[in-house]
């Protein structure tokens, strides 16, 4: 009964989405106010029914209803309840339902928070999002119905969730990532709506910008969590593999980074308009491409739950319609929204253009490396794989190129600035960081390391530039209001994100350069040295878990004769599937992680053991957190809230005008 209720809700949501995609859009061209007014109601309606469907699937998982195919394939009566919950999206069908749920969540948010927008705009935005929902609901209903039953051959117990996915990180990683992925549909819908109306001005950018920043912030957090999960759960201690699935989420992020910056220019100065629209289209298209890559089973990965050519074809066609349709619309309408505002070569616009070019090129090189094997395979030209060396060779120089500009950008002026002023502002930070880079490059390893020196130089340059900017804003100018209030939310957010980026770069370079790693055989009472640390294997034992049994090894870690930690890595055998999983033990701190993982038993009383010393690896994720939260904070800026009340009056006038014209 419960699964059928979910199935029916999903069908109702599909019908409502069809209405949302058609009626308000039609109304916006016919100046039919009643039809346009339906948009928010229909959007909320879709959300409610998708939410009911999602709740029904969740109930099926929690109540161990193994007559439902996905529950039988991905859960087990012994699975801890929290993982039964995350198992809802730990499979193809459920994760697609989560995709739609989050899309409808964004739709509801737009419907509720955009009452100040002109009615034609809001109805078109919601209609475009409704059409996207139609595509994904059809995909879910036609090819991947989560409510399919196994009757009458209902299994007694389930197959269990893939042990790799039985982890707290996986409870929040997919929802956060999807918040970002799907959130990019909002700027996309705004862009399409703007192309339809031909009204693409600063106020359009101001409406679109907070949504874009929030989506991009969630995407940053989702990617960060995925990297963290891979680090401690896959048992190799790697944090980024340039795996096609990682790239699938990274490409929208790179394009989104360009979009976030380009929107700033469009909002403040009214330039880069058609470029911004193009970026919005590409960013969401890359989200869809990512969904295609991950969901179609063309890739070898943890994320590829099932390979089914029919599903791949469906998304490919959908992708072609969305990308083709929006680019066609762009080709037809973009010239009418192009801008003619002048700016100098030495100006903030020009610097942000550098950002845009670098991130667009970075997206393209990652896209090339990701699609190359697929294209070669599709044309039967051989089975290739493109590995991390390619991506590092092309990506690292690009990021090094953009960092010098990151400091100059925020302090420079719009329209026209002078290099003399830049010199005056930044001479001191430049001198200080050059000295520090040389001094600290010996740090940690005792030998000069060029890459670490460069990383400190670039990251420090960004941080010191930002610090000087903050200091200047706090100390100069008129007295009166409390000083911290002079820093707007969008300035604070940008500052945090830039500092976070610097932290990621520094962490990435230091951990790549100074990681120490040993794979070796260890028996009880043996001692292994790694750098300044001694790892002693004290004893081996066994411990039962809820749905697995674990072999444990107890390590005592000491540094200069003092015991600093006891690490207990595990090797788990899951009962239902018989799968074996490595559970690494990590002693974490800001400056270094110590990482122990078990390989396989060798002989009677020894194990293959992997020991790792990873300096500053935490900086990657702390930096990622700063980037994500920084982006979220920008949306709190007062000017976005002020516009809600201020523009209500303007909106009415604009609506009058638009309706008048349409008649």
């Amino acid at each position, binding site marked *: 009964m419960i699964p059928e209720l979910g199935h029916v809700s999903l069908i109702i949501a599909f019908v409502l989405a069809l209405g949302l995609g058609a009626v308000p859009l039609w109304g916006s061209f016919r100046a039919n106010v009643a039809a346009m007014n339906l948009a928010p109601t229909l959007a909320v309606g879709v959300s409610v029914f998708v939410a009911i469907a999602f709740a029904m699937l969740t109930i099926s998982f929690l109540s161990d209803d193994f007559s439902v195919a996905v529950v039988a394939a991905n859960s087990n009566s012994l699975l801890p309840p929290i993982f039964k919950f995350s198992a809802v999206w730990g499979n193809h069908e459920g994760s697609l339902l989560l995709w739609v749920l989050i899309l409808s969540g964004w739709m509801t948010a737009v419907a509720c928070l955009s009452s100040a927008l002109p009615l034609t705009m809001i109805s078109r935005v919601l209609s475009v999002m409704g059409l996207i929902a139609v595509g994904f609901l059809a995909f879910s209903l036609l090819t991947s119905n989560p409510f399919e039953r196994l009757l009458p051959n209902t299994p007694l117990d389930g197959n269990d969730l893939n042990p790799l996915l039985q982890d707290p990180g996986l409870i929040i990683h997919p929802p956060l990532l999807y918040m970002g992925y799907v959130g990019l549909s909002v700027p996309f819908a705004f862009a399409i709506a703007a192309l339809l109306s031909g009204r693409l001005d600063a106020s359009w950018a101001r409406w679109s910008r907070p949504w874009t920043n929030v989506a991009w912030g969630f995407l940053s957090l989702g990617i960060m969590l995925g990297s963290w999960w891979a680090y401690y759960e896959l048992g190799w201690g790697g944090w980024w593999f340039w795996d096609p699935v990682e790239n699938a989420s990274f490409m929208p992020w790179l394009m989104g980074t360009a979009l976030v910056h380009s929107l700033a220019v469009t909002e403040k100065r009214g330039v880069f308009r058609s470029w911004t629209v193009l970026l919005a289209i590409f960013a969401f298209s890359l989200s869809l491409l990512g969904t295609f890559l991950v969901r179609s089973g063309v890739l070898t990965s943890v994320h590829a739950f099932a390979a089914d050519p029919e599903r791949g074809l469906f998304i490919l066609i959908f992708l072609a319609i969305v990308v083709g349709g929006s680019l066609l619309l762009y080709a037809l309408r973009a010239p009418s929204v192009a801008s003619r505002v002048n700016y100098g070569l030495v100006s903030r616009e020009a610097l942000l253009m550098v950002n845009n070019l670098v991130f667009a090129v970075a997206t393209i*090189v990652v896209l090339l490396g990701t699609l190359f094997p697929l294209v070669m395979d599709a044309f039967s030209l051989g*089975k290739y794989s493109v590995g991390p060396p390619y991506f590092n060779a092309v990506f690292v120089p*690009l990021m090094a190129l953009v960092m010098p500009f990151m400091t100059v950008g925020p302090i420079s002026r719009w329209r026209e600035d002078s290099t003399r002023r830049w010199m005056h502002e930044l001479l001191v930070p430049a001198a200080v960081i050059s000295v520090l880079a040389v001094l600290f490059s010996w740090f940690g390893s005792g030998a000069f390391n060029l890459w670490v020196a460069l990383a400190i130089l670039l990251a420090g340059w960004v941080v010191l530039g930002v610090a000087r900017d903050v200091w200047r804003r706090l100390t100069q100018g008129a007295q009166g209001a409390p000083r911290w209030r002079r820093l707007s939310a969008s300035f604070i957010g940008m500052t945090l994100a830039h500092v976070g980026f610097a932290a990621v770069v520094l962490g990435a370079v230091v951990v790549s350069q100074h990681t120490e790693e040993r794979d070796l055989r260890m028996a009880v009472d043996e001692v292994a040295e790694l750098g300044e640390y001694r790892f002693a294997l004290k004893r081996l034992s066994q411990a039962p878990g809820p749905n697995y049994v674990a072999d444990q090894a107890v390590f005592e870690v000491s540094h200069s004769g003092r015991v600093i930690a006891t690490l207990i890595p595990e090797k788990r055998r899951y009962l239902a599937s018989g799968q074996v999983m490595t559970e690494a033990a990590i002693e974490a701190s800001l400056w270094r992680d110590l990482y122990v993982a078990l390989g396989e038993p060798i002989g009677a009383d020894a194990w293959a053991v992997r020991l790792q010393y990873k300096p500053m690896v935490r900086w990657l994720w702390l930096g990622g957190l700063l980037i994500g939260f920084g982006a979220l904070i920008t949306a709190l800026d007062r000017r976005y809230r002020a516009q809600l009340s201020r523009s209500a009056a303007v909106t009415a006038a604009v609506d009058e005008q638009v309706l008048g014209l349409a008649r």
Partner: protein
Amino acid sequence: MHSVRKQRLILVALVVVLSSAAIGLVAFALRDNINLFYPPADVVAGKAPVDRNIRLGGMVVEGSVVRSEESLDTVFWVTDYEASVPVKYSGILPDLFAEGEGVVAEGRLDETGALVATQVLAKHDENYMPPEVAAALQGKTMPAGDRGGP
């Protein structure tokens, strides 16, 4: 007007320089860093290059895995049921590595025709087979009694 044209020219120049630099980098990086996939039959037939990294995929021959008692050295055979190739690997094998299961090994061939692997990848869950392996095995069935390998 003049400054607008000059600005456009500089922008175009910037785009050209940056994109050609990127294309150069991509071409350079692709040349050295792509690995071609070979099934065991091709390796035994001498079709695989010996001076560069390749990927070898197939099934781990049952009973062929020999682990050293003293170190992490392991030798196992990979088969596509037509031919088998020995793989030498020193290090920790992935959790899902097992005899009779699909595997992809990356490394170089040595003079004896064995693959010295730098990385061994096993599938991510038990119903899943790397697509390359599935393709390599397509149309080839395991003959009864013949286990291939040593």
